[in-house]
């Protein structure tokens, strides 16, 4: 740096600016030698920067609601993906003798007490049919008449009629049992066990309880709920990723190219935006199910076919629906961001350096709207779960043996008053799952984009 005499700048006497001329005189050529590696490392050590993600994480950690939601999500993930490994029942395993179990049980001793009590109260005044016949026979012989088979049948029929009210009162008996239990002060114990399982347990065997009871086929509800949660979460996450990829690419291209390309692409978006999604998703799910099933069952093998078979036709049709319809919101958001970002100097610089459009989008534009992308993706998950449960509830969701929270709720609707827990358990888990994702998404938005916070 050479300062010529004639360009000497007059300095204000109160200026705090260092006198550069004196400084230059103090410098020796050594000062201009390149820094050693050690010095460089020291420099980096000194100014450890707070990265975007660290900053966001710091903000997120302060948000108690979001952190609780994150905890719930982690728990649900473990519940859905690790849980089934710990439980010895299968989701489509019919546990014989364990049908229609409530999520509670009475101990064997208590049951015995109740039975004894009931037996004591209803001392049998039922007359044995054979005894009656024998009596009638004796009577008939006394009178010197012939006891015919017809008479015997009449007596038997009469006895049957007499016994009938006793049979039908067995329903009352269960009410009776309840009141007896109440009088004896017998308490319910959590978790459901079948009679056989209780006996095995009494013999010292280790029996895993049916925590949420079982359904009408004896399938363990806990395991089914776990698998249902797994289905819901997988659908949510994969659908969100699908939406992310399509939406981000489409939006970025549309925003970056601008002009006629943008106009045409935006017309398409408007068109899809106007389509009532749920209706069309329902339609696609309905139509694709038989089409894909037909495809899977057709002759020959191919990698695509086995892929379809593994995922199941319903999940695929759901993903297709998402890929077709749900990316528009994402693409609109990304486009808006890109429109702003592409005016920035670093984009101009990259272009001046000869970077291609694709590179600019990949390396400069998309990383700079990562906050928006993450938030929108995260908020897409609950809406996908919502949709999956909706479709499953209507019976066009996940295929039959595999449970889904929505289809479990439908199945439970018929026995709603007697087996309320069957309806409540999947509904509550579904609601908690969606709630947690919603709250976490909100927290993430606040953390990643503090300007948006209201």
């Amino acid at each position: 740096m050479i300062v010529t005499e004639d360009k000497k700048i007059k300095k204000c006497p109160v200026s705090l600016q260092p006198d550069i001329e004196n400084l230059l005189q103090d410098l020796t050529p050594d000062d201009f030698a390149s820094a050693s590696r050690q010095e460089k490392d020291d420099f980096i050590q000194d100014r450890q920067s707070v990265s975007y993600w660290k900053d966001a994480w710091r903000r997120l950690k302060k948000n108690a609601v979001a952190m609780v939601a994150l905890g719930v999500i982690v728990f649900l993930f473990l519940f859905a993906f690790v849980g089934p490994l710990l439980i010895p029942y299968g989701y489509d395993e019919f546990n014989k003798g364990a049908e229609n179990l409530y999520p509670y049980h009475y101990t064997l001793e208590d049951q015995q007490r109740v039975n004894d009590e009931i037996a004591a109260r209803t001392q049998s005044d039922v007359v044995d049919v054979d005894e009656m016949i024998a009596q009638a026979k004796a009577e008939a012989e006394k009178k010197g008449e012939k006891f015919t088979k017809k008479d015997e049948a009449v007596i038997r029929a009469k006895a049957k009629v007499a016994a009938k009210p006793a049979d039908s009162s067995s329903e009352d008996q269960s009410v009776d049992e309840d009141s007896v239990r109440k009088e004896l002060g017998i308490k319910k114990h959590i978790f459901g066990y079948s009679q056989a399982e209780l006996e095995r347990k009494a013999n010292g065997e280790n029996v895993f309880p049916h925590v949420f009871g079982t359904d009408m086929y004896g399938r363990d509800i806990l395991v089914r709920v776990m698998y249902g949660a797994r289905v819901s979460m997988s659908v949510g996450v994969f659908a969100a990723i699908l939406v992310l990829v399509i939406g981000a690419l489409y939006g970025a291209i549309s925003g970056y190219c601008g002009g006629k390309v943008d106009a045409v692409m935006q017309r398409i978006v408007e068109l899809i935006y106007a389509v009532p999604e749920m209706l069309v998703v329902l339609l696609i799910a309905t139509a694709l199910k038989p089409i894909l099933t037909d495809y899977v069952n057709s002759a020959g093998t191919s990698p695509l076919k086995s892929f379809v078979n593994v995922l199941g036709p319903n999940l695929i049709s759901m993903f297709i629906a998402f890929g077709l319809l749900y990316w528009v919101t994402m693409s609109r958001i990304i486009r808006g961001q890109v429109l702003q970002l592409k005016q920035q100097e670093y984009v101009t610089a990259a272009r001046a350096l000869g970077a291609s459009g694709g590179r600019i989008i990949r390396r400069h534009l998309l990383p700079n709207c990562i906050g928006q992308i993450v938030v929108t993706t995260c908020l897409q998950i609950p809406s996908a779960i919502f949709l999956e449960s909706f479709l499953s509830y209507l019976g066009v969701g996940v295929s039959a043996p595999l449970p889904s929270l929505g289809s479990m709720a439908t199945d439970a609707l018929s026995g709603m008053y007697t087996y309320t827990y069957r309806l409540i358990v999947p509904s509550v888990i579904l609601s908690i799952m969606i709630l947690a994702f919603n709250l976490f998404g909100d927290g993430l938005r606040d953390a990643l984009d503090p300007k948006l916070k209201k």
Partner: protein
Amino acid sequence: MGKYFVKRLGMAILTIFLVACLTFLLMNAVPGSPWLSEKTPSETTLAALNAKYGLDKPVYVQLFMYLKNILHGDFGVSLKMQKNRAVLDIIVDMFPVSAKVGALALLWAILVGVPLGCLAAFKRGKLTDSILRVICTLGISMPSFVVASVLLVTLTGNNALNLFPSIFDPSQGWRAYVLPCFALGFYPMCYTARQTRSAMLDSLSQEYIKTARAKGLKNKKIIFKHALRNALIPVITYLGPQVAFTLCGGFVVESVFSIPGLGRYFVQSIQNRDYPVIMGTTIFLAAFIILMNLVVDLLYKVADPRISLTKGGE
């Protein structure tokens, strides 16, 4: 305005056309023919049937035939559910029930949601706000069948408070409508409340509110005349999607409460694979939703003069 209207209408019609095409093509691709039943007809009968209904022609010809028939109000006849009854006839018969339930649900959602949102905005950060936020977040996290199930378990049946019928029965008057409308409107209510709250907060921080305060207007006047009016505009925008959501949520709620509406019928037709009914209902409902969106959009432009009409969209 006129030009904009024509453009939007054209777009709406194009969308309806596309949905109709998609519906037809999807349903056409479904394997199996409508004549498949226990008794397989003979070859000649099949050929005659196909010829009679035009099923022997190429797909695009069938598509145009179908679209032409729709324009003439002919959606075909039901094949399974109500054999040989015209689909249009069924729609005309059942849509009013759905529309009534849906409209009532939406009405209560807005009438309750907007004031709740305002309340939350005024009491920002206080207990009221927190409680309302919890309720509303919960509300948008519960699918309508969950809400309906909870209502059914707690408020109907013989073991609980038996206040309302669990099965829709129009002879019970207003009591029949309470539960379905509540279940259907809960999500839109919570959504509206959230929207109103954030719009209201946005609106309250604007300069014109400061001006109004500075010139000494009463709080009531500021809120209702200045803040709320502007806050309602974004709420109106979401009305269109809400109509769609309420109609689709109706599928579930109508099934749960056995309401003899179009939604339940649609679901039944899907379960029974009665394709003409599925197609007709889809196209009808899609057209209805798209037109409602159009109306809401136009209303929105009228309500907010700041929005330029020549440049569509934000």
